């Protein structure tokens, strides 16, 4: 018989994590397998090719491709500075000279014998990859990637924006169900990952970013506060590349809901510690959820920590669930019964449901698709 598997976001106190760290193009891996690394260490480096300009010389100089090729003064591989002569062609009786100079520095990548176009590649840019986890390098693929393993506390969020950041965890002086306002933000939040409150106001987010916070973790957010902070509306839950200085992670969703007790408890226990966070979220195709990781010192006992994939999400009687849909959205409940046959719900649809007891004592029926294990 099939098991009822239900998604749930991980909130683990001690878990063995592995993270794959890859370069976008071939480069150099700076550490060896077995090495111990800290989250902020640079572990890989590569050069990203610069932008390529296609210089349409015949068009720019008013010549045929053949004429351009006859007057070309550079060859493939030449490094040019702005203003260097690329092509020169004498016109009528040698009187009218037509010249074309390099518009920017770069290397000549190609000269087309067919069209007379020239490709000029700008200087490359350096890209560095940080360890992200404080742990041990367990795999290295030369020039491409490595895998780092660490023991850590892990809290997965439901949605986030902004990429990888690190900082010291700092709890805000605000009640769990309160809206975070600017006055709750420390004046100097440089290098801090702030957490607490039900949802932040737009002003509070701006204040936190301006004060130098690296991250902001809260239960939920008003859709308009997020749009205001980003400067645009997010249409697809595929995030992580936003051009913002502070990553934001929500543990519950949109609206105004306090962080779950378990998440708050785990974060509170790690206050003052170095934390790495990543707001990157991808709901579709190989779901990626944002994460908050507080690494622990490596020890011989590391291998005894359970792996993050060990936790099974099986819905059983007595399980604690969070309801993720109107009209009970955000409420926690205890599963009382899991009827086998589909039942008719208010909309008229037939679906498999569960019966659950809410915190206020009410017993309600909820589609199984609308709960997450707490």
């Amino acid at each position: 018989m099939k098991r009822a598997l239900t998604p749930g976001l991980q909130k683990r106190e001690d878990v063995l994590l592995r993270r794959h760290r890859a370069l976008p193009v071939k480069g150099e891996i700076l550490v060896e397998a077995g090495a111990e690394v800290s989250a902020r260490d640079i572990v890989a480096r590569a050069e990203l090719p610069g932008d390529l300009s296609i210089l349409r010389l015949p068009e720019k100089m008013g010549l045929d491709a053949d004429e351009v090729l006859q007057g070309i003064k550079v060859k493939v591989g030449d490094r040019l500075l702005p203003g260097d002569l690329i092509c020169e062609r004498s016109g009528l009786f040698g009187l009218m000279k037509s010249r074309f100079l390099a518009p920017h520095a770069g290397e000549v990548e190609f000269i087309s014998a067919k069209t007379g176009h020239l490709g000029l590649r700008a200087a490359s840019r350096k890209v560095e990859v940080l360890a992200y986890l404080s742990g041990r390098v367990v795999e290295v693929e030369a020039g491409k990637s490595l895998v780092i393993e660490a023991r850590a506390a892990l809290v997965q969020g439901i949605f986030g924006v902004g990429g990888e950041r690190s900082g010291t965890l700092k709890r805000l002086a605000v009640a769990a169900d309160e809206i975070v306002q600017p006055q709750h933000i420390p004046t100097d939040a440089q290098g801090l990952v702030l957490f607490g409150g039900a949802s932040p106001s737009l002003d509070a987010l701006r204040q936190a970013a301006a004060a130098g916070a690296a991250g902001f973790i809260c239960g939920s957010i008003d859709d308009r506060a997020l749009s205001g902070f980003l400067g645009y509306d997010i249409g697809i839950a595929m995030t992580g590349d936003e051009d913002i200085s502070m990553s934001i992670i929500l543990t519950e969703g949109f609206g105004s809901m306090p962080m779950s007790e378990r998440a708050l408890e785990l974060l509170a226990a790690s206050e003052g510690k170095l934390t790495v966070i990543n707001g990157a979220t991808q709901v579709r195709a190989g779901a990626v959820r944002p994460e908050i990781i507080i690494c622990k010192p490596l020890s011989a006992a590391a291998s005894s920590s359970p792996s993050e994939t060990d936790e099974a999400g099986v819905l059983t009687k007595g399980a604690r669930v969070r309801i993720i849909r109107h009209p009970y959205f955000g409420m926690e409940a205890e599963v009382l019964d899991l009827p086998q046959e589909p039942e008719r719900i208010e909309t008229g649809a037939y679906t498999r449901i569960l019966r659950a007891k809410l915190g206020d004592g009410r017993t309600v029926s909820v589609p199984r698709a609308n709960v997450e294990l707490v």
Partner: protein
Amino acid sequence: MSSIDPQKLQVVLVTDCGSTTTKALLFERMADGWHQTCRGEAPTTVEEPVADVTVGALNAVTEIEELSGRRILDPTALVQGLVPFLPRSADGRNGLDLYLSTSSAGGGLQMLVMGVVRQMTTESAERAALGAGAIVLDAISADDGREDHERVERIRHLRPDIVLLCGGIDSGSRSHVIEMAEMLLAASPRPRFGDTLRLPVIYAGNSEAAAEVQEILGGMAQISVVENVRPVLERENLGPAREAIHEFFLKHVMSHSPGYSRLLSWTPLPVMPTPAAVGDMVRTYAISQNLQVLCVDIGGATSDVFSVFRNQAGEPVFNRTVSANLGMSYSIANVLVEAGVDAIARWLPCRIETTDLRDRLRNKMIRPTSIPQSMEDLWLEQAVCREALRLSLQHHRSLAVGLSGVQRQRGIADIFAQGKSRYELVDMMKLDVVIGSGGVLSHAPERIQAMLMMLEGFGLCGLTQITVDSIFMLPHLGVFSALHPAAAAEIFGRDCLINLGWSLVPVFPAGIPAGTPLAEVLIDDRPKFTIKKGEVSRAEFEPDQKVKLKLVPLHKAVDLGAGAGEASERTLDMGQCGLLMDGRNRPIEFAGDSVSAQKQIYQRIGLI
């Protein structure tokens, strides 16, 4: 394929490996013909930790075994890595004759198309790619308004499965398409699968430039040269490019996807991209029935629109478009962004505060598998569906255009006049049938809800039959129709297409006061219903009752589909929900309190 005798088939199993779910259907020939008899489904498994598409396919087949009692899988063969299906037993109770599959798992077939002139070769290239079932990541052309370095940067960042490079008519200028080839070389994008794989490129441009393009790209790509998609201005030739796309899809995309080489070994026919199979079924149906058809598959992330409309020469023309970010779960918030809160809220028969509405849709975006439990939530999702339909049709209409000048010689001046002389193929007044597919339409708790969503979302006009695909069977039937079109058509009519009924929408000039009678509907020659401006009503009949209707405009400017002021007579199967009569002009105007207006409509047609 030649070794299979379609006439000997009795039991056929077809899977569609979708991006989230693998659906298996069993087709059986019975005494009265072909039927779809059983359905199983399981999560698709193309990602870690499983990363083998056959696991999800086998799970879906196992569900069919459990539900039907038919033994299908051969455990010994499975362990030995052989074709895991039992042959049909002598008594016909176990096993099967044939296994087929379609796939859109792992993001489907992702293509980059390149052409020279946006409204000519690039558009033809786009139509070829879309018709082959691809998602077009970008359409690059020399006149797309971007700088060269922007194009190079864009191409480099994409990771297409295949590039389709077109440009120029045969015997025309070669230089522009060669420039595009150089640009592709400069960008040298990496293919999505296989770091060691050279980028698959199909060249379907000016045939006289083929050798030069091969020379330019030969070092970085594996090139297939096929006939030009636009050999002359007046004609498109999409078939060869489409075949090459399917060949590359199987050879380079499927074979690099986890578990697909095994899946391919189970079936004697090529695994088709899901949208290509759906398109084949829609096209076959429209052409065989001589109908003009619009079909939408509204999924969680994307909306696919297929149409067959006749061009000015009277030939049926098939088109497909994908609105990549208009969907009902993953992309639901993008519908909100593109349409706006007010456009969604105007379809609601109840009031939901703007903040609440936005938060609810965002929460659906981040928890895409949740389902509406309250009526409010259901109505909200159905309101979003209307907007997704409206926007995806708008997108479709912009690409489903006729090639101008089919019947005439063209001079150089016509090339520059191309933009002006294009014409839309989609003519809603001439649309015969609309087919809705996807959970929000196929599984609407009340069929009339699906009917209303399509009526309002598409802005149907005139007399149109409204249907839904019962359980998203179109891909399965599309791939089966390649082998046995008659059987596929039989199942399509019997088990796939559910006739919801008809909509009748008078088209009339502005300025007619609200409440003015526009048309009369006579049943068996007796006046029965009057359609008034601004009102929506419903005529209910026995399910599938055949009714003789006479449609009479009450004003010479009112068009019911037969021409302004013209009456018409039809005998129609009224389906499950009967006739919806909509006296609102197109586009529907919302004056005053839209909630009250929608509530009234819901009440009049029996939804509240």
